[in-house]
């Protein structure tokens, strides 16, 4: 009998603390969707405080000068955990001057927030997360403006994306600032976008911190990006992207990755304890070359699998990075080993044994451009490697002096 009492007491103790209160959600699905359709240009839609659950995508289309304002990112929560229909949580498309602020979006089956073809989109204090943390089943993007112009992402939080937390694609005139991205595959990613500023952000504990990519076959190609005064720390999370996507090839431990883009200034950032590489500068040719090896061993995990096979046929696309200027950043790395699960990580490991590099350039240069397209002015203690991948790594150099040139600073003001 005594033991039964004891048992009861222990059970109570064991779980009283952990037993979560059921979370009560309200449904405002029909009325909110109706409001998003009937709202008149120039209006502000106020979202009340509370937890709101949705079963379908919410969509607003073709509106101008609209603000949607919650009561705060911890107070107004839109959850799509019970979603059975629609590929996004909230979809804003084809509008002008749209502002979303002070609410949270959680657990959509696809992207949490997609903004497509809007001129003038401001996201301020939006928290967009998959609440259970990093998982391959999570949606691709937490905050996803695509085909937009005049994008401002300010004081936002992105967590749990199986691709990129803050992702801006095929857009122009973009500012991403004062935001936090963690536990995503890519923290912040700018892809095929032009005139982009990324500053004052914290990208930490992602697989890769900040990615500036240019990919072939799309509606536009990117250039002119300034990445400054960000903290890019401990982006060593395992890569949980679904294979097939370009970010699946990012090795864990990547601080900043610059792929096939041009006119980029990286300055004033703290790039710390990213175990594989602080900053990688690579061409799409390297991605393609690694991919060719991959075809023979298709089942391997963590390789570079994703290449549009005919990228060379895309005459408007330049696969080589150039006009890159890296200076006055703080690089530190207390880690000894890069991520060995990924091709790029293995490559760095073999070429820079026991001492993962701060900056790596693949050395595959555009044959039609003069030298000094990659400039690094970081002082002597920063380890810079030129892989010379174009010549099967024959001329691999660890000498930072070869990159000592003053590149073009970028001013977008």
């Amino acid at each position, binding site marked *: 009998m005594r033991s039964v009492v004891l048992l009861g007491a222990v059970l109570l103790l064991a779980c009283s603390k952990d037993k979560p209160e059921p979370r009560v959600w*309200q449904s405002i699905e029909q009325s909110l*969707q109706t409001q998003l359709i009937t709202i008149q240009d120039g209006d502000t839609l106020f979202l009340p405080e509370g937890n709101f659950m949705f079963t379908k995508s919410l969509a607003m289309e073709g509106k101008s000068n609209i603000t949607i304002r919650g009561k705060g990112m911890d107070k107004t929560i839109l959850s799509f955990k019970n979603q059975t229909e629609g590929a996004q949580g909230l979809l804003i498309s084809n509008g002008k001057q749209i502002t979303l602020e002070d609410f949270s979006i959680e657990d959509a089956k*696809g992207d949490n927030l997609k903004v497509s073809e809007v001129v003038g989109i401001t996201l301020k204090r939006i928290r967009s997360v998959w609440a259970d943390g990093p998982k391959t089943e999570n949606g691709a*993007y937490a905050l996803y403006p695509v085909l937009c112009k005049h994008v401002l992402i300010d004081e936002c939080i992105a967590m749990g994306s199986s691709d990129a937390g803050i992702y801006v694609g095929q857009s122009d005139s973009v500012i991403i600032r004062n935001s936090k991205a963690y536990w995503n595959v890519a923290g912040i990613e700018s892809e095929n976008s032009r005139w982009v500023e990324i500053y004052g952000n914290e990208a930490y504990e992602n697989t890769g911190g900040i990615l500036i990519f240019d990919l072939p076959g799309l509606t536009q190609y990117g250039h002119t990006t300034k990445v400054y005064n960000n903290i890019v720390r401990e982006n060593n999370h395992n890569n949980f992207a679904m294979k097939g996507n370009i970010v699946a090839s990012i090795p864990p431990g990547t601080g900043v990755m610059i792929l096939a883009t041009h006119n980029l200034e990286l300055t004033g950032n703290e790039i710390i304890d990213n175990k594989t590489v602080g900053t990688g500068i690579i061409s799409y040719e390297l991605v393609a070359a690694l991919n060719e090896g991959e075809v023979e061993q298709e089942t391997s995990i963590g390789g570079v699998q994703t290449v549009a096979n005919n990228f060379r046929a895309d005459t408007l696309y330049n696969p080589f990075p150039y006009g890159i200027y890296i200076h006055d950043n703080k690089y530190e790395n207390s880690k000894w080993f890069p991520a060995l699960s990924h091709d790029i990580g293995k490559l760095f490991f073999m070429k820079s044994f026991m001492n993962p590099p701060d900056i790596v350039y693949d050395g595959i240069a555009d044959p039609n451009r003069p030298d000094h397209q990659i400039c690094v002015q970081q002082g002597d203690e920063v380890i810079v490697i030129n892989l010379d991948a174009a010549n099967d790594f024959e001329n691999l150099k660890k000498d930072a002096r070869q990159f000592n040139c003053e590149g073009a600073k970028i001013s977008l003001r």
Partner: protein
Amino acid sequence: MRRVSLLVFFCALLSCESRKQEIIVLPETESTIDLSHIGKTKLSEYGFFVGELKTLTPAADVIPYTLNSALFSDYALKKRFVKIPQGRKAVYNADDVFDFLEGTILIKNFYYPADLNKPEENLRILETRLLINESGIWKALPYIWNDEQTEAYLNVAGKNLDVSWKHTDGQLRKISYSVPNMNQCKGCHLRGDKVKPIGPSARQLNCDYLFSEGKQNQLAYWQSRGLIDVPELGSIAKLVSYDDESVAVSERARAWLEINCAHCHRADGPAKNSGLYLLSSENDLSRLGVGKAPVAAGKGSGGLLYGIVPGKPDESILQYRIESVHPGVMMPELGRSITHEEGVALVRQWIKEMK
């Protein structure tokens, strides 16, 4: 005592499992938002049909039409009509949807027969979608039918309806049929920044239809009714019917992809950011998905590398996504909750035979 504490330990462990936070969703309170500025609140107010509404018997100026290859909508059947105002002839276009002038209304009714093998009996009409050309701008309005089948009411926010029918294989099918919200209508009908009809192009209309006056080519009939001026029939291209087994698999598959996917996957459609273009006129294999890596597919890639891998449908993302019913994976994103078995089998065969 030792045994007891062990027991206690396990019980504690067990009792703590399945302690996942419960989700309770309170039902939505009915709210009434005035929709009268958006459109007529009842379908009957338009006067498209004569006699009992549910018979969908068209008024004299309302013309029925059909398409060679139709969008799959969870096996729902469709009755389509067009109303072109007197003296506002549509403008012919050889490749694209006709230019319909102000005042034109396209009417599309979605319904299920109790038994798909008896498509004319025991019909339940679920919804009627209108595309109305008002001062040159197309407006998309969804109307939902009542259970009595006496009226359909404007509903801008969409709704789910429980539907069941006896399928062609004799099995009972049950789904939660989703009437789209007004924005979702636009999601498919958007071209650039303008809403446009998808179906009524010369290629789609170029086939016979059994009019009350007899069987006739639809384009010839429209011409005879003074709705449009068309060139000589023999010169007009024709989209194949993907159901027509006498036609080559590749042509049928491309027709299926065009009507199910290409309203978004085209150079001026909402999915242009993907770089995947699926009009049947697309000749660039890479743009069609062959050897093309995904751009922003997320888990939609299914762990596969390319849109289409010739000869290997199971390694093709396109095949994976048209077969899926997961909301974050499935294509098209909207308009179906189940898989079009015949359609995906066709595309599968096409990819399999592709070299």
